[in-house]
């Protein structure tokens, strides 16, 4: 019975995906799709436009949902609650549909409705394991923060609607062109904050590290892969419509993105929980996408086509890349959790012998996320680097210095990501297990492995043949930089040529590795190859506890970063001569979260406690409140009349 339900969902997802992908692919090639639903008088007309940008997002969404549903069916097989499962599957489909609609609808109110449906369904999907308290807390955190973001979006939409009277997205364009520059920038900032809550820019990110570990792994993978990209989609769409003051907007985006990128990766390194580490990494990658978009916008403002193309192409490609390797990483983490029932890095180890395929897939994703060639992460980072570098030769020293610092920041982000993922991959999969596993972990089922293979194939193919994917990006980038469609403008083919060379080098590299490995195997056939325990410098008892733990791996780093992070040490003081068992643990806490959220929450709670007397449970008081409210309304509506009477009364004197 269970298996059949899963199959129905898979079939539905594939069907929806295929149908929309067909339309989307056409739009990506330049044939836009437009369909106007005539709504009623409240909503106005509801245009459903799928242009190249929406098409790009829809294709990514479909791919990620396909892998997600395949993985999820396998992952959820171990759960027994069938009613919960059916609800989960229904919500999954609703989420898929709503996300596709979010990318297509261009009417304010309809957009908000679909956005809300998406938020609610993702919330309910996250709290799949509702019996755990932290899951519900995390889910509510996500829910509340999403709504704060929606509040900003609603305010901006209402503002535009009140000024222009239209409910179509194009109204934003009208609004921006008729208003002075500062107004347009304020509108953009409001929308940026609103969509930024969804995307996970710092300081609106605090829900991410809670929601991702709490959700089941296929949902985490999809959340990181596409749901937070909807925030980016919103920003990009608004950017298309507010086509003025690009430089200032670009600098704002760039500043926030650099900060997010650095902050995300700095905190990611010191996490103990594998999924939290990946969640902080998502924040960093959103920062990288933001950097791409930021420099693209600045390029538009400076009328520097190369910069604009490099920025937008890099950002858009990184959206695809990130959804691929992040979902792959989360699926891997899910497999680990399913087999070992723990996500604490410090307690894992040696999994590569037991789950070799998962390990290889995780390794491919880890190499990709660090931006190392020959995989796809490098391609998008390269595009962004080329844009940054070309903007170094500008006329203003301040601008060059700024670009140089962004350049250095991106390099540092890459280096820190490498530190983080060597730790994650190394400690989890390599070495020997640091704590005995209760159940011997085995390789996971084929159903769970197959979507991971799909994603890995995409990663490798983008890495080795990037020029094909760059061609696909031509139309979405053309939305921002219309000039490149002009056949005399050679930027795209130029970049294409470079990327071909990069792909070629990737192929050479892989071939070279195989050649050297084969030489070694061939020459080693006649020699003695023995196996023995790792050299322990003469220690007789080789204990797995002698291995480096994750915290010790990053200890040198955390010593340097200590001024920025706030660290809680649970130290056990050794007082006795023969001490018993002592525990020592360090936890790193997010300082921004502490200052922005926790302190304000405490203050708010104190304030609200004082008002506690209002809620005293006696019905008579509630009736009294109702009466006061009615009197207040009457008073206010007759306010003007009463006011004039009072004025007249005083005039008599």
């Amino acid at each position, binding site marked *: 019975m269970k298996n059949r339900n899963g199959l129905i969902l898979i079939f539905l997802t594939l069907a929806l995906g295929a149908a929309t992908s067909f339309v989307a692919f056409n739009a990506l090639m330049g044939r836009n799709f437009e369909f106007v639903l005539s709504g009623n008088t409240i909503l106005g007309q509801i245009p459903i436009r799928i242009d190249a940008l929406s098409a790009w997002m829809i294709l990514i969404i479909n791919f990620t949902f396909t892998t997600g549903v395949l993985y999820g069916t396998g992952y959820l097989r171990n759960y027994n609650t069938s009613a919960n499962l059916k609800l989960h599957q229904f919500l999954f489909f609703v989420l898929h549909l709503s996300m596709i609609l979010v990318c297509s609808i261009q009417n304010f109110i309809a957009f908000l409705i679909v956005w809300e449906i998406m938020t609610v369904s993702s919330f309910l999907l996250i709290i799949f394991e509702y019996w755990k308290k932290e899951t519900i807390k995390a889910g509510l955190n996500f829910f509340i923060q999403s709504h704060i973001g929606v509040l900003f979006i609603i305010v901006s939409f209402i503002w535009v609607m009140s000024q222009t009277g239209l409910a179509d997205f194009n109204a934003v364009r009208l609004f921006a062109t008729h208003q002075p520059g500062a107004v347009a920038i304020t509108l953009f900032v409001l929308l940026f904050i609103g969509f930024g809550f969804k995307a996970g820019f710092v300081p609106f990110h605090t829900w991410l590290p809670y929601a991702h570990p709490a959700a089941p792994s296929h949902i985490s993978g999809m959340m990181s892969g596409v749901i937070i990209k909807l925030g980016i989609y919103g920003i990009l769409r608004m950017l298309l419509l507010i086509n003025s003051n690009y430089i200032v907007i670009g600098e704002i985006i760039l500043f926030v993105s650099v900060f997010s990128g650095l902050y995300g990766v700095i905190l990611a390194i010191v996490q103990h929980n594998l999924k939290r580490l990946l969640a902080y990494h998502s924040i960093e990658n959103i920062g990288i996408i933001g950097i791409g978009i930021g420099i693209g916008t600045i390029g538009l403002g400076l009328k520097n086509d190369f910069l604009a193309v490099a920025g937008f192409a890099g950002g858009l490609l990184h959206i695809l890349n990130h959804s691929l390797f992040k979902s792959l990483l989360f699926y891997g983490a899910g497999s680990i959790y399913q087999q070992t029932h723990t996500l604490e890095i410090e307690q894992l180890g040696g999994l590569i012998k037991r789950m070799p395929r998962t390990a290889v897939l995780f390794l491919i994703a880890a190499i990709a996320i660090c931006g190392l060639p020959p995989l796809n992460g490098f391609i998008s980072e390269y595009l962004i680097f080329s844009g940054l570098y070309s903007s170094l030769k500008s006329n203003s020293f301040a601008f060059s*210095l700024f670009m140089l610092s962004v350049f250095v920041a991106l390099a540092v982000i890459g280096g820190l990501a490498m530190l983080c993922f060597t730790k994650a991959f190394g400690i989890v999969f390599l070495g020997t297990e640091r704590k005995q596993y209760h159940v011997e972990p085995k390789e996971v089922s084929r159903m769970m492995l197959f979507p991971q293979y799909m994603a890995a194939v995409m990663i490798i193919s983008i890495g080795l043949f990037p020029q094909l994917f760059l061609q696909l990006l031509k139309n979405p980038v053309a939305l921002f930089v219309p000039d490149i469609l002009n056949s005399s403008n050679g930027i795209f083919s130029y970049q294409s040529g470079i990327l071909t060379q990069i792909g070629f080098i990737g192929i050479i590299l892989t071939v070279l590795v195989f050649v050297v490995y084969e030489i070694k195997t061939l020459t080693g056939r006649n020699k003695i190859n023995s196996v023995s325990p790792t050299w322990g410098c003469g220690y007789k008892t080789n204990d797995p506890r002698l291995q480096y733990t994750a915290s010790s791996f990053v200890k040198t780093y955390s010593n*340097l970063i200590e*001024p920025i992070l706030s660290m809680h040490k649970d130290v056990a003081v050794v007082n006795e001569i023969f001490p018993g068992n002592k525990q020592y643990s360090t936890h790193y806490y997010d300082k921004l979260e502490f200052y922005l959220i926790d302190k304000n929450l405490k203050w708010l709670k104190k304030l609200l406690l004082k008002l506690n007397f209002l809620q005293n449970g006696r019905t008579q008081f509630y009736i009294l409140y109702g009466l006061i409210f009615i009197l207040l309304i009457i008073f206010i509506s007759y306010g003007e009349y009463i006011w004039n009477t009072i004025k007249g009364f005083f005039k008599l004197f």
Partner: protein
Amino acid sequence: MVNLLLIFFIVTLFVCATAIRLKTFIKAIACQGLLLFGIFFLRLNEINTVNLVLLLLETLIFKAVVIPYFLHYLIKKNKINRESDPYISNFTSLFIITFIVMTTFYLANTLRGGVFGNIYFVVSMITIFTGLFLMISRKKIITHVMSFIIMENGVVVLSLTVGIEMPMLVNLGILLDIFVTVLVLGIFANKIGDIFKEAEVGHLERLRD
């Protein structure tokens, strides 16, 4: 060529930030004296020759020879521990000083025009801020004094900004030099060693009423 010397001047500031042994600190200050000698020579070749020779001699002797010798003597005499303990770790202080360099260049560029765009002004600002920062972030009294010397080097570079038009300003800078040497090193540190046995800045609080 002068620009090159100024860049090496900033490199000595970096060395000061990461210096763990006090001897490295003193060597950096001596290097600064030599570099200033070179800068003076290359920049001020339009003023009165006698004045110029006096300035050059003074810079060379005081900054590069006398002050480091004095500092050495102090360290030996008061048996000060030869390491500098910082409040802020060396890594972070290097980072902060790099940040200071970048920000000062950026600010100077946005305030284009007149004296602000002059590179001597920028370098002097960097030196003064670095000296202030080092003063705040180090524990020992002797490093306190050495950061003051760095700051005062910065003031001398500042005087070079308009030194060609107003040679009197450069003379005033040199007088400040001599003032520092005589007062701070000759009297202050000699006597301080007699009163405070372990020369930590915190103990200066005892001077309060």
